[in-house]
């Protein structure tokens, strides 16, 4: 299989995806959830409502999206984005229709969970991981071009994931929340994992046949691991698809984020990391 002859195509696809992502991030930005922006917490005691879905119905009929519902013994704690006084009154009225005995326990505005600090520290952590992985991969493979390529592929995946959430946010209302941060971290680990497996095969083939040039080496390695890569991604995709279809609405966007991350990670190890290694090799000669 001569996969590496498609290199220009791979570059084009990546350039296109990164371009679209940057465009969307600059033009549309993100839709921050209440985790980032803060919102409202409303606690109600509802002697006649025990079922959470009833509460969801009340909010749905008023077009107020719920961030989370927590049930205590006899009350519900509902967190959602900030609403104005009019909307608040409407919500209370609808609630009264469902349960005449409902009592307003508290209605407060909430600050964000995800402060600047958490984000800054997470970014520092990502930069540190990049450095550590660069050194580790560079040393393991005795070649720092491998380290650079793996990290670039990883950043490529994260950037596309961030960009696609800007797009999904603009068109479908997907919000950036704390789960998204987790999905991003997962993508980072999964992406490097895949890349290293492919690199490993190149190293092994190179030991067996030192004369083979880099392009042929890469082709052989990719065609040998591609079945494994696809099979492995399939298993994760199965898990995630069932989460998208069967999981609750609160976790749906999260599963979508992971799905994008995993597909990107598999694609990039073959179509970004390896071509980048070849690029460095060519430059050297």
């Amino acid at each position, binding site marked *: 299989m001569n996969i590496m002859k498609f290199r220009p195509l791979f570059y084009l696809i990546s350039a296109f995806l990164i371009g679209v992502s940057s465009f969307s991030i600059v033009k549309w930005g993100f839709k921050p959830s209440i985790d980032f922006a803060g919102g409202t917490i409303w606690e109600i005691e509802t002697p006649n409502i025990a079922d959470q879905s009833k509460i969801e119905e009340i909010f749905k009929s008023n077009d107020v999206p719920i961030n989370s519902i927590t049930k205590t013994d006899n009350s519900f704690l509902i967190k959602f984005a900030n609403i104005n006084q009019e909307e608040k009154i409407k919500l209370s009225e609808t609630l009264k229709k469902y349960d005449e005995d409902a009592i307003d326990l*508290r209605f407060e505005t909430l600050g964000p969970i995800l402060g600047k600090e958490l984000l800054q520290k997470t970014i520092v*952590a990502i930069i540190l991981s990049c450095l550590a992985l660069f050194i580790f991969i560079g040393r393991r493979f005795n070649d720092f071009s491998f380290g650079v390529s793996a990290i670039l592929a990883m950043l490529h995946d994260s950037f596309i994931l961030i960009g696609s959430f800007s797009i999904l946010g603009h068109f479908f209302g997907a919000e950036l929340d*704390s789960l998204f941060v987790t999905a991003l971290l997962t993508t980072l680990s999964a992406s490097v994992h895949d890349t290293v*497996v492919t690199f490993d095969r190149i190293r092994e083939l190179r030991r067996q046949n030192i004369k083979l040039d880099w392009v042929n080496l890469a082709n052989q390695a990719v065609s040998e691991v591609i079945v494994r890569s696809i*099979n492995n991604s399939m*298993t994760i995709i199965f898990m995630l698809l069932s989460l998208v279809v069967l999981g609750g609405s609160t976790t749906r966007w999260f599963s979508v984020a992971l799905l994008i991350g995993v597909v990107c990670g598999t694609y990039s190890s073959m179509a970004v990391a390896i071509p980048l290694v070849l690029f460095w090799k060519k430059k050297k000669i």
Partner: protein
Amino acid sequence: MESLKGNIERRVNLFGLSEANVQISSKGGNNRLTVDLPGLENIDEAIGLIGQTAQLKFMGEKELLPEATASATFYDVFSVDTGLNGSHLVRSSVEINSTNSEPEVALEFSSEGSKLFEKATKDFLGKRIAIFLDDYPVTFPTVQTVITDGRAVISGSFDIKSAKALSAQLNAGALPMPIKLIQQSLVGATLGKESIDRGIKAGLVGLVIVSVFMVGNYGYLGFIADLGLIIYGLLTLSLYRLIPITLSFPGIVGFILSVGMAVDSNILIFERIKEETRRGKSFNVAMELGFGRAWNSIKDANTCTIITGLILFNPLNWNFLNTSGMVRGFAVTLILGIFVSIFTGVFVTRNLLRVLAKRKE
């Protein structure tokens, strides 16, 4: 309010809870902190620790008779209460002296505090005033002049680091007032019981599909891998119980991801075995070769994930990395999952295969 939030976060972290949330909320100008502590068993202890305000006290030096000095403890010496406490301190900061460019710790008192401080500096001119944080002496500077404007400077042989440390301690005690507990409640899972239930159902369905896929793709080998996966699941879940780890959503994701990596080890190995049998080796030889060769990839790939996991988990509590919250919760389950998955994916399945393959012959 932000500094109070920081203080509370620090105290909550003493519990080692993986995913506590501290949130500021406000109602009619009153600020409140909402503290979510998932999976906590002893709620009273938590409330005690959070509610415990770090109290600053300013105590003046007492004139002791010469014969009493020898046996006097620190607390006997500084036993005159100046009436000043943490609520009078507005803030403390590190400043650099403009004449000798040495670091100093500056204190700023409220208007009421300024009056008390003026009186204290008059009373104890030339003597020492000790500052206690939660009954632990922090520093005991000598009063040089009477200070009337509520702005004091502690100078001495500080370097930047020790000045910063002292200033941080003073700030920790400069809470506006003792915290009042408004409400406590035990609640269900944040995501709602329903979404967790649905998540578990979805996870199970996904696992069944994965198992079928493995058997369909690798037949007999896939079945062994499924057995390994079951052992993996049981082992990790019991580890969560033992340590103990609270499973909140990011934690569950770390778990699912590590399941993915456990399957991955097996797929790597089986693909290798397939290759070797295609080259005409007998199954037993192919099996041993497959495990041996795949081991390199498994080792390298998982080391990378562990490196990322460790940096996110921040075991040494470095300040510039995450010291609390969900990122760490995710990292813990991920790291644990990887170690267990290497054990089951390589060691357990290998031995299962060896035993079963022998019987086949």
